[in-house]
């Protein structure tokens, strides 16, 4: 007997079949209704009398559908296995209120399930089924539309974005009293491309100026992209993989165009997960650059001595909230704590913490779904009690969504607490040296670096006369004395006679190639300790150098080499060399 079903319901069932994979089917089949998930969900804990919040109950709404249509037991004995279909648009609306309104996809139940049922994964899938037929909370629809059509989730136009970045640039120039503190836009070949959450640019750009200040003080070679700067991704929340792929590829495409080395992702939990962990699958795209949370970037700046901080400038009592996406889903537990301890004196944990932490209650896009706000805030009682017990007056988190979720519940439960992020604390603790002339690696700053290589004799070895002139003039502009050699034999002879402080060496040259020259130099006592920077147009020859039975070269650059790259690497070689000399033997 044909079933009477609405068009949308028909489509949802059809699509469910296409979305089933091993993980989802495993999760749908494995539940034994043991109730472990019940105790792990903040919705259940705050609403003990209401079984409809229990993850297993919520999961059953979808499981019934699966059994009815895609599992033989449900097709044969639907009454026995509780199989049930959806028929009307009203059924879909009810399902919507469950998957969007009663779960933040925080995955706390997933990690506490002894059967390995990842409820959040198929809750997300169920969201995606509904979104595919246009059934979703209005807030999700509005944000998704902006991300599809304008390219960022708050509909920020290009000129407004650029205007705000320029404003933040002026702000840090004033604060640092240094017109050279800049926020470069679309600079190619940088080490860091910084991507953000649109709320930073639309409503609260203080995190942008703080980050810019940190990059500047670290002397970072960085940029912000003019497009593809939104690393958030509503595809994660709405379950729409197509949207997820479109948003992620916008970020990746821009990165490829700029030829940057590393995307640094500002403190946003779902943005980090989407861009770093999920986006490549959604977009069906491989990427060849690194991706890193700004938390790790900032921690490394301090540990490597690239910035100095004074923790006594942060005077509050702090606790740390682990974001579900940042911590539970992506494993960043210790890095933020390490950083927090580097910039504050008074940090205490909240309990439970790390992978067992409770959701901020605003996760999974809940902050954009006003219709569920009363349930959200009621269920936030668990989080409020947890925060209160820490005795801290500031809660730090590495997620913008958590900032808003926590701020909202702090207001609702009248807690005497503030929310902040690590970038704010690091920027606040920054030690700005008097007369700080931070050697920012900007091309227009080459002037200020004059004399950088003063007193150094550098030998440039390359068979291309144009390249010898180019490298030579860059090095001479920075105070070095340059000698040139056009082939291998000349290079060895000149090195012995002149004993330069550094040699840049081409690999493929007629006659004695760079590899042989390199080995000869290393094997000769007089020249063995001269630092060598290989510059080659044939990176595949790398093994010819590293396989040789002599110490590896101090630097290795692939052609074409820009002025900045050359200066930076030569500087690095000299500086590392100095540091080694200072080390006690």
């Amino acid at each position, binding site marked *: 007997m044909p079933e009477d079903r609405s068009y949308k319901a028909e489509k949802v069932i059809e699509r469910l079949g296409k979305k089933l994979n091993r993980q989802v089917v495993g999760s749908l089949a494995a539940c034994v209704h043991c109730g472990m998930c019940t105790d792990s969900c903040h919705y259940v804990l705050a609403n003990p009398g209401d079984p409809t919040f229990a993850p297993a109950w919520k999961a059953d709404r979808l499981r019934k559908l699966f059994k009815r249509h895609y599992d033989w037991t449900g097709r044969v004995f639907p009454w026995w296995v509780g199989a049930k279909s959806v028929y009307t648009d009203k059924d879909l609306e009810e399902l919507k209120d469950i998957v969007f309104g009663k779960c933040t996809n925080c995955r706390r139940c997933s990690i506490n399930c002894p059967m390995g049922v990842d409820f959040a994964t198929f809750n997300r899938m169920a969201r995606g089924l509904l979104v595919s037929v246009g059934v979703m909370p209005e*807030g999700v629809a*509005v*944000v998704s539309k*902006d991300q599809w059509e304008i390219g960022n*989730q*708050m*509909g*920020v136009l290009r000129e*407004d974005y650029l*205007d*705000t970045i320029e*404003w933040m640039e002026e*702000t840090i120039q004033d604060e640092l009293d240094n017109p050279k503190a800049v926020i470069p836009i679309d600079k190619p070949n940088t080490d860091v491309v910084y991507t953000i*959450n*649109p*709320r930073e*640019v*639309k*409503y*609260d*750009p*203080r995190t942008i100026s703080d980050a810019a200040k940190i990059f500047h003080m670290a002397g970072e070679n960085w940029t912000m992209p003019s497009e593809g700067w939104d690393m*958030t991704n509503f595809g994660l929340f709405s379950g729409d993989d197509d949207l997820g792929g479109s948003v992620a590829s916008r970020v990746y495409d821009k990165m490829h165009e700029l030829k940057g080395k590393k995307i640094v992702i500002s403190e*946003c939990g779902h943005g980090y997960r989407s861009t770093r962990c999920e986006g490549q699958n959604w977009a069906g795209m491989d990427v060849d650059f690194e991706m890193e949370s700004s938390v790790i970037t900032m921690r490394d700046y301090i540990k490597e001595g690239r910035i100095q901080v004074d923790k006594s400038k942060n005077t509050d009592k702090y606790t740390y909230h682990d974001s579900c996406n940042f911590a539970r889903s992506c494993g960043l537990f210790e890095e933020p704590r390490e950083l927090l301890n580097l910039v504050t004196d008074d940090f205490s944990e909240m309990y439970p913490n790390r992978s067992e932490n409770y959701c901020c209650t605003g996760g999974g896009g809940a*902050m*954009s779904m*006003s*219709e*569920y*706000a*009363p349930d959200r805030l009621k269920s936030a009682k668990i989080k409020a009690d947890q925060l209160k017990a820490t005795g801290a007056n500031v809660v730090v988190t590495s997620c*913008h*969504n958590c900032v*808003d979720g926590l*701020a909202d519940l702090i*207001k609702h439960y009248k807690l005497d607490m503030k929310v902040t992020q690590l970038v704010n604390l690091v920027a606040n603790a920054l030690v700005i040296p008097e007369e700080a002339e931070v050697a920012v690696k900007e091309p227009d700053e080459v002037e200020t670096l004059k004399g950088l290589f003063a007193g150094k004799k550098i030998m440039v070895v390359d068979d291309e006369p144009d390249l010898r002139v180019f490298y030579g003039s860059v090095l001479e502009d920075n105070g070095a004395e340059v000698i040139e050699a056009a082939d291998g034999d000349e290079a060895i002879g000149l090195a012995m006679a002149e004993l330069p402080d550094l040699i840049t060496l081409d690999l493929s040259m007629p006659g004695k190639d760079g590899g042989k020259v390199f080995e000869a130099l290393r094997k000769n006592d007089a020249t063995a300790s001269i630092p060598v920077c290989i510059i080659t147009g044939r990176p595949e020859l790398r093994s010819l150098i590293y396989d040789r039975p002599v110490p590896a070269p101090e630097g290795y650059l692939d052609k074409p080499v820009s002025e900045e790259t050359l200066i930076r690497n030569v500087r690095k070689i000299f500086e590392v060399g100095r540091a080694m000399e200072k080390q006690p033997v």
Partner: protein
Amino acid sequence: MPTFEHGEFKVEVDEDGFITDPEIWNEELATALATTEGVDEMTEEHWKLVNYLRNYYMQFGIAPMVRKLCKETGFPLKKVYEMFPSGPAKGACKVAGLPKPTGCV
């Protein structure tokens, strides 16, 4: 729909406390809404900011970038946060009778 009640006021708001009909907005209502956002007294500066937000919204149908807000009113960003502790998105927009901003806020 929930209601916001304060003194003589009883108006319809969304679940986050933003008024649903921008037409019913007036200065008395704004003063009442301000008390829910940690603003006890609406000074002349508060009005300048709120009126700017409101006029922008009536003209363009969206909330302005905070950049525009600061540029047009002349208030530094820090000052905006001092006036409206919950920030321009939630605090100031609510008082000005705008709908809740969309997205991660």
